[in-house]
């Protein structure tokens, strides 16, 4: 609809006006910079999915040198920290209910007898009819990450307890970690944060910027001037493309500087992918602005889109582990496609050809969004 009558002069006038207003709106201006910084610090430092140093309790009914050796060996894994010793299981359960500890290691009175018969302890690694586990973990299973970390202790070797050097068992599979060999969560989170933060700011800023003009009555005057809806929309969202790129630079810069997240791929490819995503988000904001009557409504609709963008896009939980239905919803969100692209480029040095499907999706989003917004926008004028 950007037909022959479109005037760059008018678009430019709207852009300049928008920039002036934005630069005078300290709050919004601050948010542009603070949102990515704060989120990055929060996610980078606070959120860690490798659980370590889980507070646990101990009930040791055998009180032998072997049981003490076992507790030491468990502590040495760094998965758990023994915070308290209880005299009975009953006390330990109460402590777990209160939340003092997340799990309890229970060593029965016949611990030493069990230990001696255990194949991992003895020199003859075959199980006899008398073999039993040497102790029991009682776990607060409500947090699955913690439960999984303790489950991993199930098959802990007992060589250390037996005062032997740890035997080298040959694994069935060898695992080689590509792209994030140290398995740091933050490396995966930073590219994901790009998508989450931009979803939030881009959609919210455009949606409210246009609704604000309606709410404050500016639109009533503008409609009677020769400005075209398309010119107004382009002029209003253009400054936010720059804002979006700025936020991407902040996130990647801090990610690199503070969290040593390397950028494996080319900045050029990343820039193109980011632009595609910014355009898709901005047009989504435009569509919202044609639905919402007030800025509050615009914010509510933004949250409605932001939540699945955080939960289903692969940012929080692996996309492949989600049920089919959730995956379909995820495909409908621009954030899903951008997270895929951003991770591929930042971590795996993928180029655009590897990512053409997602790039195409984002392009399609933008085109569809512009068409819907333009049609609906005309209605609000009429």
């Amino acid at each position, binding site marked *: 609809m950007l037909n022959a009558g479109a005037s760059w*002069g*008018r678009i430019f*006038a709207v852009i300049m*006006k928008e920039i002036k207003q934005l630069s005078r709106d300290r709050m919004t201006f601050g948010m542009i910079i603070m949102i990515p910084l704060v989120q990055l610090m929060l996610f980078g430092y606070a959120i860690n999915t490798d659980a370590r140093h889980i507070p646990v309790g101990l009930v040791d009914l055998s009180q032998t040198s072997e049981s003490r050796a076992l507790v030491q060996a468990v502590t040495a894994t760094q998965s758990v920290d023994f915070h308290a010793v209880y005299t009975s299981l009953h006390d330990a359960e109460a402590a777990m209910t209160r939340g003092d500890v997340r799990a309890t290691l229970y060593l029965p009175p016949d611990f030493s007898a069990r230990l001696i018969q255990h194949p991992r302890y003895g020199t003859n690694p075959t199980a006899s009819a008398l073999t039993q586990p040497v102790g029991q973990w009682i776990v607060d299973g409500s947090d699955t990450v913690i439960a999984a970390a303790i489950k991993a202790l199930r098959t802990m070797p007992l060589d250390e307890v037996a005062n032997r050097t740890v035997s080298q068992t040959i694994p069935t599979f060898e695992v080689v970690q590509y792209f994030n060999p140290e398995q740091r969560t933050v490396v995966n989170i930073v590219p994901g944060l790009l998508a989450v933060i931009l979803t939030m700011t881009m959609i919210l800023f455009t949606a409210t910027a246009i609704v604000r003009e309606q709410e404050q009555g500016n639109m*009533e*005057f503008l409609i009677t*001037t020769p400005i075209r809806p398309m010119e107004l929309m382009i002029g209003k969202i253009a400054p936010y493309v720059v804002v979006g790129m700025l936020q991407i630079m902040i996130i990647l810069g801090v990610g690199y500087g503070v969290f040593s997240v390397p950028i494996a791929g080319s900045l050029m490819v990343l820039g193109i992918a980011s632009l595609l995503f910014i355009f898709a988000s901005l047009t989504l904001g435009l569509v919202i602005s044609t639905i919402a009557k007030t800025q509050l409504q615009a914010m509510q609709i933004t949250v409605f889109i932001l939540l699945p963008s955080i939960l289903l896009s692969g940012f929080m939980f692996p996309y492949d582990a989600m049920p089919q239905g959730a995956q379909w919803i995820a495909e409908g969100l621009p954030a899903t496609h951008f997270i895929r692209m951003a991770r591929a480029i930042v971590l795996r040095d993928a180029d655009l050809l590897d990512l053409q499907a997602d790039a195409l999706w984002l392009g399609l989003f933008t085109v569809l969004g512009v068409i819907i917004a333009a049609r609906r926008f005309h209605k609000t*004028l009429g």
Partner: protein
Amino acid sequence: MSNAGKFAIEAQGLTKAFGEHIAVNELNFRIPKGCIYGFLGPNGCGKSTTIRLMTGLLTPTSGEITILGQTLAGHEEAIKQKLGYMTQKFSLYDSLTVLENLRFVAAIYGFTGTRRTQRIDELLHLYDLKNQAKQYAGSMSGGQKQRLALACATLHSPELLFLDEPTSAVDPENRREFWERLFDLCDAGTTILVSTHYMDEAERCHALAILEDGHLRADGSPAELMNAMPANVVEIGGEQLRQLKQALLQQSEVLSAAQIGAHLRVLVKKTQTDPLRFLALLCAGRPMQLARPSLEDVFVTCTGTRHDE
């Protein structure tokens, strides 16, 4: 079509319904070129809605509008270039300065370079905004805002200017000043349509239409309207006017009775050929005299529940 050159606005059967509610009901009027035309009516009578219909902001439910000889429907874009519109609520940007607002509007209307600078200078001077040029619009007084809004609405020298309650936040002194500017514009050939609920403002118009509840109750020049008023005005003096008022309102010939200072201003239907004798029978011994009708009397006569019985 012989009238095409004579009228700035012609409306025929103009109707706008919002759901069940009919905000504008079968309006017919013609506004001659070069005059100041008033829409007089109480809150919610449909003044703003009618103006929005004529500026193309709203699409009529039925009826037809011709603006400057051209049918509005289908020609909105071309007609927009010739219209200026000052909204009831301030519609410029609070966080931009006076100058920035003017520059923005100038750019929207395609003014560039020295033409733009000159025109803005002219307007700043004309509307006495030179000292406020660098001030944020949001921090200005009601009168200053209104002058800025008029400057923006007239920046492109429109042939037809719509002003929706332009002086509701303005003191009488500034209101006079504002009307001076309107007469200047009118002299320069601009047709102006202004909505108001102030009688003194309505009186300044060349012609006006009285609206009530979406209906057009009367139209014409103030003098015509006063002459054609179907009631006589009698002023009654004396004590205990409030009781008298209640008593008089019982009479179906009495359209209205309102206390004004030490008098009771009574409108008696013209069907009563001798209003003084009619009233003397009702309140013997009080001083009373016929008075010249005012626009307010016209307004009261043709609105309210008693007018069409």
